[in-house]
């Protein structure tokens, strides 16, 4: 029996699980995939929005502004890369200019600090590569960037280090109310808890309906991206948005915390919640608008492309409700969900207190998680200090991102432990560079097999079905 189960290990579930653990609860996180951060959380724009976008008075606005203020501290505790690089919303014509001014007004009302409307001269000064057609911009110095899956891994890992449990490959299929809580099933398997937090992203409507709550629907909206080599990461220093129009928010250009350049997302409503295909039209759209936003973006330096699905609710706002005592929906958490996630977690504990649950701060809770990155940036002396104790830190496995065997082994042995190649990738950046694992994936497969005590044929790229090897060669048989 747990105090609480959290369904879904995206950034929202992860932050909630950590917050509940901090408040003395015994928590179990249930995730249907082979790893955490496999939904919207691994494929989004990675922006900690300042908070000028959402309508005043909405949950989105309130939680975005609060979350964005909390994020810096959370990132520090969890050893996660975070950079306050500032955002720019650029306008190309008089109509855009009006929108820029409206955003300024709205942001100021939402409580966003230090907003400024700037002209082309100033824009060009702070962002020399800005597109030739940009005439003005809203400048939000509090906008920031973060790595969303690193944040989620760290939050879950930290919760686990403080006693939480994680069950992957646990797809919730039914929920039963009991006298003192809920029984949450995956097929025959079940977990019992007093409290259920529904953070199942695209499927949060399905989960809610399992206890008879059919009050909302969630539909997928596709967002495709193209990611460029680290060589291009300083083409812009700010996150460059376009002014939102009837056609949506448009394509943004942003550096990432790891120094790449990210362009996207497209925005297309689709039906299939499993369809994360990229499309030729999507790529063309990204490239066209990127060229307007920023001059000379070299798309021949592309290293990968991907697609995330927004979980769009039918109310236009986040759907944070409690249809039954101890059951909380965190649904329709589309953008700015990443930015808002620390504040959403706080809201969960507040709602539970209101419902009469006793939450007591866990005195032993250690909020600090050692950063998993950063070996690369140590001084020669510091590195040698570590290599002297553990030789594996002297051996480079991923050549493009210079990731050592020591870092990979540490990641494989740290909560939440990865069991597939993409899991190692998200934790260490090995296979994330320009050759995309061409050199190092065979080595990492061997490390995973050895550490997890499985055969190499059982190593997958990303969970069930995604096997890498189909057998041995004739000689090796």
């Amino acid at each position, binding site marked *: 029996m747990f105090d609480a189960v959290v369904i879904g290990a995206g950034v929202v579930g992860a932050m909630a699980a950590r917050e509940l653990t901090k408040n003395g609860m015994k928590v179990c996180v249930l995730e249907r995939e082979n790893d955490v951060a496999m939904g919207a959380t691994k494929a989004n724009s990675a922006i900690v929005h300042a908070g000028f976008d959402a309508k005043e008075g909405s949950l989105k606005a309130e939680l975005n502004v609060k979350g964005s203020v909390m994020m810096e501290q959370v990132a520090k505790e969890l050893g996660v890369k975070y950079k306050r690089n500032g955002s720019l919303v650029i306008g190309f014509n008089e109509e855009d200019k009006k929108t820029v001014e409206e955003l300024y007004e709205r942001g100021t009302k939402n409580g966003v600090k230090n907003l400024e409307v700037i002209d082309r001269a100033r824009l060009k000064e702070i962002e020399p590569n800005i597109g030739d057609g940009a005439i003005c911009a809203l400048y939000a110095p509090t906008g920031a960037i973060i790595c969303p899956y690193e944040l989620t891994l760290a939050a879950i890992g930290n919760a686990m280090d403080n006693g939480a449990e994680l069950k992957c490959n646990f797809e919730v299929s039914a929920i039963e109310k009991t006298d003192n809580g809920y029984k949450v099933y995956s097929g025959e398997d079940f977990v019992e808890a007093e409290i259920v937090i529904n953070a199942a992203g695209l499927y949060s409507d399905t989960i809610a309906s399992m206890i008879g709550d059919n009050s909302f629907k969630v539909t997928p909206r596709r967002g495709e991206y193209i990611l460029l080599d680290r060589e291009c990461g300083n083409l812009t220093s700010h996150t460059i948005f376009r002014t939102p129009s009837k056609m949506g928010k448009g394509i943004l250009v942003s550096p990432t915390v790891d120094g790449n350049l990210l362009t996207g997302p497209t925005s297309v409503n689709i039906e299939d919640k499993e369809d994360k295909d990229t*499309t030729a039209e999507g*790529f063309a759209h990204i490239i066209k608008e990127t060229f307007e936003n920023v001059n000379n973006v070299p798309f021949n330096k*592309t290293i990968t492309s991907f697609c995330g699905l927004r979980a769009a609710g039918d109310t236009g706002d986040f759907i944070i409700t409690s249809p039954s005592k101890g059951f909380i929906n965190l649904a329709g958490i589309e953008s700015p969900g990443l930015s808002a996630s620390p504040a959403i977690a706080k809201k969960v504990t507040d709602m539970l207190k209101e419902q009469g649950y006793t939450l007591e701060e866990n005195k032993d809770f250690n909020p600090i998680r050692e950063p998993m990155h950063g070996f690369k940036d140590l001084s020669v002396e510091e590195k040698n200090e570590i290599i002297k104790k553990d030789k*594996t830190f002297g051996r480079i496995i991923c*050549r493009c991102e210079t990731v050592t065997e020591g870092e990979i082994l540490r990641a494989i042995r740290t909560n939440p432990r990865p069991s597939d190649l993409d899991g190692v990738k998200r934790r260490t950046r090995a296979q994330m560079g320009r050759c995309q*694992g061409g050199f190092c994936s065979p080595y990492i497969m061997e490390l995973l097999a050895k550490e997890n005590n499985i055969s190499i044929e059982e190593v997958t790229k990303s969970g069930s079905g995604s096997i890498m*090897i189909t057998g041995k060669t*004739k000689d090796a048989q």
Partner: protein
Amino acid sequence: MTDLVIIGGGPAGMSAAVAAYEAGIRDILILERDNSLGGILQQCIHNGFGLHKFGQELTGPEYAWKYEEKVKELNIPYKLNTMVLDITSDKVITATNATDGVFCIQAKAVILAMGCRERSKGALNIPGSRPAGIYSAGTAQKLVNMKGYMPGKNVVILGSGDIGLIMARRMTLEGAKVHAVCELMPYSGGLARNIEQCLNDFNIPLKLSHTVTKIHGKGRVEAVTISKVDENRKPIPGTEEFIPCDTLLLSVGLIPENELSKSADVTLDRITGGAVVDQNRQTSAEGIFACGNVLHVHDLVDFVSDEAEIAGKAAADYINGRVDEKTNVTIKTDGKVRYTVPQVITSKKDVTVYFRVADVFRNAKITVSGNGEVLLSKKKPKLAPGEMESIKLKKELFENCSEITFALEV
């Protein structure tokens, strides 16, 4: 202080080391990140190496072994499992390995011989899903030849570079079914002999002017859609063909591995992706030389060895302070000739210029001109991007030029 540090212990690095040794340099160090010398040749277990250099058909490992033996016999020092992380333009090298940790070396001369890497799927923006089962051909070659693992059973290959062609045969011999090799261009970038021996002999269709337009499959690749492309390389609607398969191998180009060259402020050639060099294979950074696939992608290792010998000997001369009579001639190309190596001539000596063409040409005439007149011309029945060409220039020919142009008349 070390006289000569060579980055990379493939055929280029080893040949350069031997040449420098023979020119009198003893204080040499080869740094290699892999666990043995030999570079990419270790995984090329097919034969076809060494025809020019040794007059016999060797396998990749056999060819590499000839140089490895020489390196060992001459006691040329090398460090394996050692990754070079940085080179400065003052020739300070930072490297790391498990026994020495991170260390720095000041070199008098440096030879860059880091080879190349394969262009990855990511660079292609193929629409569709991103399942397991998509490998670059070289990675598949490593899995099969070095590790004894089969990456799949039903294969489509995109790109007809040599590695792709060789892997089509290799996978077939291992019992896999290779359904097709698709090539975006109207001609193959691979060697003619590889098309014959690796595809035709096994009845594997080569689909020219075709590309993969969609990848299907959730966990593992389940199929690909291929389409014919028009003369602008855009897919033609209505020509889609759906091919069920579990594996997509990519042989879509090699990229010289020049991240370190950039850290040393070496000027790179936009077309080759390698350094701009003179006849000695010296880069824009004094005392830093480059050879092999890091300089430009070679199809035959024999030429890699030749080039490395030039660099090794020149590095020795540099260390010993020997200098030739100077000149300064820039070599330009007309576009039909895509690039030349070297790109500049800085000494008054005879020089062999290597070059590649941009398309398939028949009955063409190569001309070298300077100061408004044709200095030299040569007829060729057939030229193809896949085959490297060379022309020897006598020093008298370019003596009075500051610029010469390589062009093609068709």
